[in-house]
C-alpha cells in the first residue's frame, strides 16, 4: 500500500493547459475522487499519476518516492479504463493473467491468483469467454479483476461505471466501495458524476480548468463550498446564488423552505413568487423569483414530499433560510467570505 502525491503538477498540450498546477496527496488506503466536468483535466491528472502521460512540470510521488521517470509498469499501480480496455482476442482468464505473466510468474501460481481474483468478483464461470461475449457489467468486473490480481499499491479508476446502465451502476457502486474497503488499497477515482463522487469518496477533489478548486470530505465540499464554482457544481439543482450589495449570497434549494411549515427563528425571511412547479415524486421543485427587498432573481426551492404546504403557480409565499445555511462569496473572486447580516446586503 502507498500514498500518492502530486506536487505542483502541470501538463500543457500546445497552448492548452490541461492540468495547471495541482497539489494533492492521498492518505493511506483512502478513496479519493477527482470530480469535474469533461475537459477539466481530471483524466489527464490520473494518466500522469499512472505514467501514461509525462507532466510538463511538477512531481508525482507514489509511496513517498518520485516516480516521474518510472514507466507505468514500475509504479505498482493498476488502472481501470472507462472502456475497460480488455484485450479482445484473449479469454477472460488470459486477460486477468496478463499482468501476472508480464511479471514472469509461474503458470500454476498464475492460475491460483486468477482464480482468486475471479472469485472476488464472482466471474469464475466466465473465465473461458472472450470479452465480446460478456455484458457491460461483466466486462467491468473482468477489468477490476485484472487490476486487482497483482495486488497493486494504488488503484486508478477512470470513470469505470459510466458505461453501465443506471440500475447496474447503483449496485456496482456499492460493490466497488465494499471491495475497496475490504482490500484497503489507496484508490483514485475519476468521475464527472457528483452522485458517484459523493457516494464513494472518502474525500473529493473538485476540479475546474485544470485546477483543484476544493478538496474535502463529501460533507465539506457540499456544505462548506470553498467558492461559487464548487457551490454551483455540486447539488441538483445547484445552490441559489443571489447578488447582494458587496457579496454573493448562496443557499441550497433544500434549505429554502416555506415559513408556514417551518416557523423558525434565527432565519432570514424571504418573499418568493412561484412561477413554475415540478412534481418529482419524492420532491417538489419550485421555480420562481424573489420579491422586494431582494433583487428580482431566479431561485429554486426543493421541498421534500413530506412538506404538504399548498403552493400554487403565481402565488407569493414567505420562505425562510436558516442563518447558518447562508453562504457568502466574494463578488470578484468567487471565494468564500465571512458571513454578515443579510440586512447589510439587501435594503
Amino acid at each position: 500500500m502507498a500514498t500518492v502525491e502530486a506536487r505542483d503538477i502541470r501538463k500543457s498540450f500546445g497552448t492548452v493547459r490541461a492540468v495547471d498546477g495541482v497539489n494533492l496527496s492521498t492518505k493511506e488506503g483512502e478513496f479519493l475522487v477527482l470530480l469535474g466536468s469533461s475537459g477539466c483535466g481530471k483524466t489527464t491528472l490520473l494518466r500522469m499519476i499512472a505514467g501514461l502521460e509525462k507532466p510538463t512540470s511538477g512531481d508525482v510521488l507514489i509511496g513517498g518516492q518520485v516516480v516521474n521517470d518510472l514507466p507505468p509498469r514500475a509504479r505498482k499501480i493498476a488502472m481501470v479504463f472507462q472502456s475497460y480496455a480488455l484485450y479482445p482476442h484473449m479469454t477472460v482468464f488470459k486477460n486477468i493473467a496478463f499482468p501476472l505473466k508480464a511479471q514472469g510468474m509461474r503458470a500454476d501460481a498464475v492460475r491460483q491468483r486468477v482464480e482468486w481474483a475471479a472469485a472476488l468478483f464472482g466471474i469464475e464461470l466466465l473465465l473461458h469467454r472472450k470479452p465480446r461475449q460478456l455484458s457491460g457489467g461483466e466486462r467491468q468486473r473482468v477489468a477490476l479483476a485484472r487490476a486487482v490480481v497483482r495486488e497493486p499499491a494504488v488503484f486508478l479508476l477512470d470513470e469505470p461505471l459510466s458505461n453501465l446502465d443506471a440500475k447496474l451502476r447503483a449496485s456496482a457502486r456499492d460493490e466497488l466501495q465494499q471491495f475497496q474497503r475490504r482490500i484497503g488499497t489507496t484508490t483514485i477515482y475519476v468521475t464527472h458524476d457528483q452522485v458517484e463522487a459523493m457516494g464513494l469518496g472518502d474525500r473529493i477533489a473538485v476540479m475546474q480548468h485544470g485546477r483543484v478548486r476544493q478538496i474535502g470530505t463529501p460533507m465539506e465540499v457540499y456544505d462548506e463550498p470553498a467558492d461559487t464554482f464548487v457551490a454551483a457544481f455540486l447539488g441538483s439543482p445547484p445552490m441559489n446564488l443571489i447578488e447582494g450589495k458587496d457579496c454573493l449570497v448562496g443557499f441550497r434549494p433544500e434549505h429554502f423552505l416555506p415559513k408556514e411549515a417551518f416557523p423558525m427563528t434565527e432565519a432570514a425571511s424571504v418573499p418568493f413568487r412561484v412561477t413554475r412547479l415540478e412534481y418529482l415524486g419524492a420532491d417538489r421543485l419550485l421555480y420562481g423569483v424573489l420579491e422586494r427587498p431582494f433583487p428580482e432573481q431566479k431561485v429554486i426551492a426543493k421541498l421534500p414530499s413530506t412538506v404538504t404546504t399548498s403552493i400554487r403557480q403565481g402565488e407569493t409565499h414567505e420562505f425562510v433560510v436558516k442563518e447558518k445555511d447562508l453562504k457568502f462569496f466574494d463578488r470578484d473572486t468567487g471565494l468564500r467570505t465571512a458571513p454578515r447580516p443579510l440586512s447589510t446586503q439587501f435594503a
Partner: protein
Amino acid sequence: MEAVKGEARVLLGAPATRFSYIRDREEWLGPLMLGPAILYIVLVVGFPFFLALYYSVSDITLGSRSLGFVGLKNFTGVIGTTKFQTALKNTFVFAILSQLLVLVLGNVLALALQKDFRGKWLVRLLILLPWVAPISLGTIGWLWIVDSIYSVINWTLRAVGIFGPTFWPIWLGVPHLAMGTVIAVHVWRLLPLATVILLAGLSSIPKDIHDAAQVDGASFWRHYFQVTLPLLLPVAVVALLFGLVFAFTDMTVIYVLTRGGPYDTTQVLASLAFFTGVAGGDLAEGAAISLFLFPLLLAAAIGFLRIARRSEVV
C-alpha cells in the same frame, strides 16, 4: 385526381422526368450504378481470363488461324520440363521470401511511423514514392543502380573502402545474387502498400488497449507479440494476400531487370508464360503456364479471407 397530382408535384418541387423516377427506386438505381464497373470487369478481366482458359486446352499458336481442342495436353506436356520446374520453384522462392521481408519491414515501418517525430511527413512521402512512381520507370532506375559496370552501389562502396580492389559483384549476372536483387527490388516496390495497410490497422487499435498493456507491465516484445500483433492480424492477412497474389502473378520487375536470366535462375511462372506465349508464339502453352497457379491462388485467397474474418475481434 390529375389536378391533385400536379399540385403535389409543384409543392415538392421535383421535376417530373423519367430519370427522377429511377433515382428514387433503389432496385433500379443500384444496378444502374454498378453497371459500368461490372462491364469493365467483364471486358478487361473476365473476357481475357476465359479466353486464356480456352487457349490452355487448345493448340493455338501465334500466327496460326486454326484452333483445335487438345484437352490437358498443354499442362501435362509443360509440367515435365526443367524450364517449368525451375520457374515453379523460383516463383515460390520469389513470392515467399519477398512477402516475408515485406511483412517484417512493413511492420517495422508502420510502428515507426505511428510515433510522432519531426519530419514525419517527409519520411511518409519518401516511403510512398515507390508506389506512386510507375513501376517500370522505377525498375529501370534500379537497372542502373545494379548495372554490371556503372553500379552506383559498387562504386560507392569501393570509394568508401568496403569493397576491395578485386571485389566487384555483378548483381544481375550471378544466379543467387540475381534472385536476391530481384527480390530486393520487388520488396522496395511493395513495401509502401503494405506499410500503409498495416498503419491503418495499427491506428484502428484503441489507445486504451495499449495503455492497459503498458500499465499491466508488458515489455515491448510482449506488448507487440501478445497484444498488437494479434489485433493487427486481420489487416496483416489482407496485406499478405495482396502481396502474395502480386508476387505470384506479376513479372514487371523480373522482365525489366533480368528477363528471367541468368540461365533462367530468376524465371518465374508469369515471365515464363510471357516468354513462351507472347515472345515464343506458343499461345496455348503460355496460357497453360499462366493458369497453372490459378487454383492455388484462389484457394489461398479464400483461406486468407476466412482467417481474416475469424480473427475479427471487435
